[in-house]
């Protein structure tokens, strides 16, 4: 973990209520995909946690949805503004456990992480299938990034206004030997309860500190209580209770 003042390099509208922000960092703070950071916003007490879609030595990019006051304030920020951030939080995905044909399922704001993860898996010589799900066509983002990569890609919308109609869990019928997922609780639960293949899920919880001191984010697991921010946010699918 490192505290840094990060300059906003870019903050653009991607699709309905969804923005992409790029922040400067002094050095790489995210050795594994699935790690996150926590942004301090002027006049809000708690930091906001987000995970990355892309990162390089000197900058990182994430996609955020406007859901409340903090993200609304973020959407109005201009390039050049600096925000204090805690970087390099959480454990991140373990790539070594993946088979050669991992299935990556992302829903809503969990799709950015899957883009980052897919990039890492490709570097490891794996053949990922990425399935992403949105409610409606106007919400779609990250298409370009995913289509540019040499991987199999399936797009779902709940109302059928783009791609295949339905939830990305439909992709579970495609052959795969490992599953990575990030998204709303019902999506993760559906995967856990129907897919026998091992995998890892990234969870979201309201956080107090984001680095392990307050017990605000604890979940019960098969091995006892675990902090989503410090012991997670990535957990082995088998260890979670539903």
């Amino acid at each position, binding site marked *: 973990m490192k505290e840094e003042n990060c300059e906003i390099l870019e903050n653009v509208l991607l699709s309905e209520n969804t923005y992409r922000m790029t922040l400067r960092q002094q050095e790489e703070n995210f050795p594994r995909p699935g790690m996150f950071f926590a942004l301090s916003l002027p006049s809000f007490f708690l930091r906001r946690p987000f995970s990355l879609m892309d990162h390089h030595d000197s900058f990182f990019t994430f996609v955020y949805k406007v859901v409340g006051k903090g993200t609304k304030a973020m959407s109005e920020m201009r390039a050049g503004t600096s925000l204090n951030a805690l970087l390099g939080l959480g454990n991140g995905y373990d790539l070594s456990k993946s088979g050669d044909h991992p299935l990556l399922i992302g829903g809503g704001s969990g799709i950015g992480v899957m883009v980052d993860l897919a990039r890492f898996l490709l570097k490891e010589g794996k053949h990922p299938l990425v399935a992403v799900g949105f409610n409606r066509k106007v919400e779609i983002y990250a298409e370009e990034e995913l289509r540019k990569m040499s991987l199999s890609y399936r797009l779902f919308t709940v109302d059928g206004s783009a791609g295949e109609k339905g939830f990305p869990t439909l992709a579970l019928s495609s052959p795969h030997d490992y599953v990575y997922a990030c998204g709303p609780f019902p999506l993760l639960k559906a995967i856990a309860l129907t897919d026998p293949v091992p995998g890892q899920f990234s969870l979201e919880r309201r956080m*107090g500190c984001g680095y392990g001191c307050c017990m605000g984010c604890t979940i019960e697991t098969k091995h006892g*209580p675990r902090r989503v921010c410090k012991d997670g946010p990535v957990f082995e699918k088998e260890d979670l209770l539903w």
Partner: protein
Amino acid sequence: MVNTKISLCGQILDNPIIAAAGTFHYGYEMASLYDINMLGSFSCKGTTLEPRFGNPSPRIAEAKDGVIISIGLENPGVDAVISTEFPRLQKVYHKKIFANCCGFSPEEFAEVAYRMDQADVVGFLEINISCPNVKGASRFSCDPALAKEVTRLVKARCHKPVFVKLSPNVTDIVSIALACEEGGADGISLINCIHAMRIDLKSRKPVLALKKGGLSGPAIFPIALRMVYDVSHAVHVPVIGIGGIETPEDVLEMMMAGASAVEVGAMNLVDPYIGKKLVLGLPEAMERYGISDLSSIIGVA
């Protein structure tokens, strides 16, 4: 050179900055951020006899300049704390801590405190009769007779100095403080979180799973200050001032109100380095206000 040392029940602390219970866990993980030995001390996570998972989620709600929490005393139980957490802590920390002890009966408080009393790393016992987020745990902080009874039982079984931690959610905090002093308390810590809640406009339901929680953070500083002032003028034992401390100036103000030392809680959540910043910033703030010996300002207001 200013003198930041203070004396608490005969023990000397390098400075009055103590990290507050529940915001510093068992300390050792914080040691990777900065040398936690620079703190005056810290108070460990509230510990009960048996392990506790705590309350359902969400346990966190935001407020203006503060946070409302409903953790519910998640901890691995006193024996695991002593056998597992303390040895990890002692690898990185060579000072004494406050053992924050909780219970559901006077006897349980005394049992937890008794076991903590034997641990090397424990310098002080902090009896948390005031957790607002656990059913049945807060009645000890509202009734002077019960508060006194808990204090008396703990004192009877322990050798180390006993601080009783009070709740602000009472009509007359001074009467509770006096009852604890009569029960033999060596000091009083105050305040714990203030009852509070938030409602989510979209779902039309409370944000917290258990609906209500406790407010802490800079928002509560003036309330805590007033209570520290009232209590320290009524009791003869040292008082630790807790609530909303964020800057070295807040530390000075709390001490002028009557606190011999302070605890810093919610600010640890948003600034992991707050303890270090306060310790390093204190001498300069003292110089700015012409204070050469910190002890000299206790209760001057």
